[in-house]
Each structure stands twice: as C-alpha cells, then as structure tokens.
C-alpha cells in the first residue's frame, strides 16, 4: 500500500460509523434509524433518559448486540457483512462497562494480560510489561497482585480501563463508567478518561457527567426512545439545544 494513500484514507474514514441502525428486542424497537460517526481523535458523549437505547447503541458498535437493519463500520470494515472476524474487530475497540466486569477469578495483572496473550498472542513478558505500564498510568501499580473484589469500585474501573487499553484499541467505548460508583470515586475515573481524551483517543462515551462533556467532548449526542434526536457540537448543545426533549432533559440533569 502506498503510504500517502494510507494516511489520507485513514484521515477521512471515520473510526466508528453507524449507518441507519434499527434494532428490535422481539416486538419492541429499541433503536430507530440511528446514524452516527466518530472521527479519529473525536470524543462523542451520548446522553439521554433511561431506556432510550444508549447501552444498546454502544453494544451494537462492537457487535455485542447484532443489529437488525443498517450497518456499523469500524475503520471502514463492516461488522455485518460476515467477511471480517468479529472477535478480531472487537479486539480493536476497547469497551468499559458500568459494572466494571473485571474477571473476578483473575488477579489484576492477569486481567490485563489475558486478552493480550490469548487474543493478540503476545509473549507473556511483553504482556506483563505493557500491563505494568498501564497500571502505573492509572495509579494502580501497588495492586497488581490483588483480586478485583478486594478493590474499591473506582479502583476496579480504572483497572477495567487499563485492561481495554492493553489491547491497543483504535477507539474506546464507555457505557456509564461512573454511574455505579460512590461520588467520591467518580473523579479518579473521570481524570483517567479526560487524560485519554486529551491524548487524542477516539471515544464514544455514554454518560450523564456533563462536566466531563463540557471539558473534553467534541460533540454531544442526545437520544430519546431509540432515536438520535440531536447530534451537535458541545457548545451548541449546552447553550442552545434544538429539541424540546433535549431541553427538558438538560434542565433536569443540570438542576441537581
């Protein structure tokens, strides 16, 4: 491949592109014609009322949930056409969950190494070095030998972020990463996410932490009843939301 072509193609192809996705759970339509794209280095915050389909949308991005119609492209590769290996595609997109989902039977270090060794086939020393570097970065070096359930929620979530980063992802998906945390632990997790964003990581973040959105988001996406109601630059979303539904939502979450 020609180097110049490669860079220009990479620059213009969105890292994540959701195209007209519909999804049903049996007879209930959860997603209605959702389209959204996230460019390289962009941080997109997704918000909306409970049950609006945010988690479902983000799970469709790495095919944890199959879509019924429409398509999702990761760096231009379709997840629905059956040509690409889904596990390979997923390995390239990091995901952080509301309830951390660290593997409880493995030590912190093992949590960070398992994917590197079994999926990326890295040598165990290489995986270990990488893991220790990431643990240092999230301030968890001292806890490498502990088990997840021996740590606080905030610590577990930072490790979960490190586990995702260990795979060298091209993008990170977050599904309400701080909403299961005690208030005093939210900051330590958000700090890690802010620094990731500032380093240029491509991120799609479902969160109601509007402070985070104001600080690092490029765009805010507002969802309601399975639809993407608003997809606007951050400033405009906060100053002048277009839809009544977004206005109502904003006034509700900003009032407390």
């Amino acid at each position, binding site marked *: 491949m020609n180097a110049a072509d490669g860079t220009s193609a990479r620059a213009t192809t969105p890292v994540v592109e959701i195209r007209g996705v519909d999804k049903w759970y049996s007879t209930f339509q959860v997603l209605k014609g959702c389209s959204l794209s996230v460019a390289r280095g962009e941080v997109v915050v997704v918000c909306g009322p409970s049950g609006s389909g945010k988690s479902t949308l983000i799970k469709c991005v790495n095919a*944890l949930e199959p879509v019924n119609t429409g398509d999702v492209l990761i760096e231009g590769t379709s997840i629905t056409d059956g040509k690409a290996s889904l596990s390979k595609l*997923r390995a390239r*997109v990091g995901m952080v*969950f509301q309830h951390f*989902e660290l593997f409880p039977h493995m030590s912190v270090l093992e949590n960070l190494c398992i994917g590197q060794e079994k*999926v990326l086939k890295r040598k165990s020393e290489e995986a270990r070095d990488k893991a220790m570097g990431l643990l240092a970065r999230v301030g968890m070096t001292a806890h490498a030998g*502990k088990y997840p*359930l021996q740590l606080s929620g905030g610590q577990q979530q930072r490790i979960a972020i490190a586990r*995702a980063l260990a795979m060298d992802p091209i993008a990170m998906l977050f599904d309400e990463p701080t909403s299961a945390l005690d208030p005093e632990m939210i900051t330590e997790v958000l700090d890690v996410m802010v620094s990731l964003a500032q380093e240029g990581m491509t991120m799609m973040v479902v969160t109601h932490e509007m402070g985070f959105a104001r600080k690092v988001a490029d765009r805010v996406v507002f969802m309601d009843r399975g639809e993407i109601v608003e997809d606007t630059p951050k400033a405009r979303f906060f100053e002048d939301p277009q839809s009544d539904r977004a206005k109502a939502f904003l006034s509700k979450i900003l009032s407390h």
Partner: protein
Amino acid sequence: MKGWHWDGFFEYLTNGYLIEGALVTLGLTVFSIFFGLILGFVIAVMRMSKYKLLSAPAYFYTWIMRGTPLLVQLIIIYTGLPQLGIKFTVVESTLIGLTLNEAAYLSEIVRAGIAAVSRGQVNAARAIGMTPFQVMRYVVAPQAFRIIIPPLGNSVNGVLKTTSIASIISMEELLRRTQVLIQERFLVLELFVVAAIYYLIMTTAWEFIQRRIERRFGRAYDPQAGLVEQR
C-alpha cells in the same frame, strides 16, 4: 455365631481382599465423576444451545437417565444388551452405566453453574476479542467451576455410595466383596460394619479434600486473602 466377634471384626478390618474392594469403589467413583463431568459439560452446553437440534437430544438424555433407576440401567446394559448382540464385561457395564447416569445429574449442576456467570462477564470477554471457545475456557468455565464445587462434592459423596448398586451385576467392589466374605464365617454384622467404616473413611476423606478445593477456588472472593499474601 451369636454375639459380636471382635477378633473377626479386626481381622476383616485389615483384610486385603476388602481393602482392594474399597479401592475398586474409589476407582469407579473417580472414573465416573471424571468422565461424567466431561460428558455432563457437553450435555449442559447442548442443553443451553438455542438450536433445538442440540438442546432437544440433551433434554431427552437427562429425562431418560434421571427418570429411571441406575439399577435398571445397569441390568439393561449388562444383561439386556447381549440380547441385541452388544456385549460388555461386568467392569465395562459398570463404568458405562455409572458414567452415563452420573453425566445426566452433573449436566444439571454444570448448567446451573454456567447460567450463574453473568451476561456482563461474557460481554466483557467478548469485548476484548475472545472467541466463543476462549470465553468459555478462560472466563465462564473457571467461574462456573467455583460455583459448582459444593454440589459437585455432594455428587462425589453420592457416587461413592451408589457404586454399591453395581454389586447386583456382580461387580467386585466393596459391597460385593463384603457379601462374598460372609460365606466364610457368617459374621454378617461384623462384615457390614467394616464395610460401613470403609465407606465412611472414603466419604470423610473426600469432605476434607472438597473443603481444600473450595478454599483454593474461593481465594479471589475472600476480601482478606489478597491483603495477607501480597506478592
């Protein structure tokens, strides 16, 4: 012959022929639990499949095996099948019968264990790019195993005693050998007490082993453990 004979009791307590019988009982148990667990795992996975073609036969299998007595199954295998030209020795029949029967019960235990591992754990494993096999191997199975240790331990205890049923088809395990020795001096009570003691020793030893296994696999879930043995 009336009264309790201590000499006979102690003689039988250290009788090599009986000890061998107890070892056979132990062997039958280890074999049928080991292979029963493998087969039970396969049946459990089939049973949980969304494809009827897999789940229906698995359901049918457990229905038959759990709905009929082991004794009847053993007699069918050993005495009935030869009628169709399928012949197994006593040992083969016993191993097959015990394993097939136990697999049905163990599959239910395994299924409950797998089901107890949360959807979130499966998604986390898939999200880092694991294949379905890897998800099972590294994330679901180890967690399911910890959950099934107590019921699995119960099964081991049960099988240790259930093997005695194979004495009916003249499998030379502990009970059969006890019965054989009765012909010697007709010390019925002494002999059966000895047999009971052997069973008790085996089930008690297992209880200790099970507790150790539980502790080993429970380490990660004990909030104190990691703080004590910091690496």
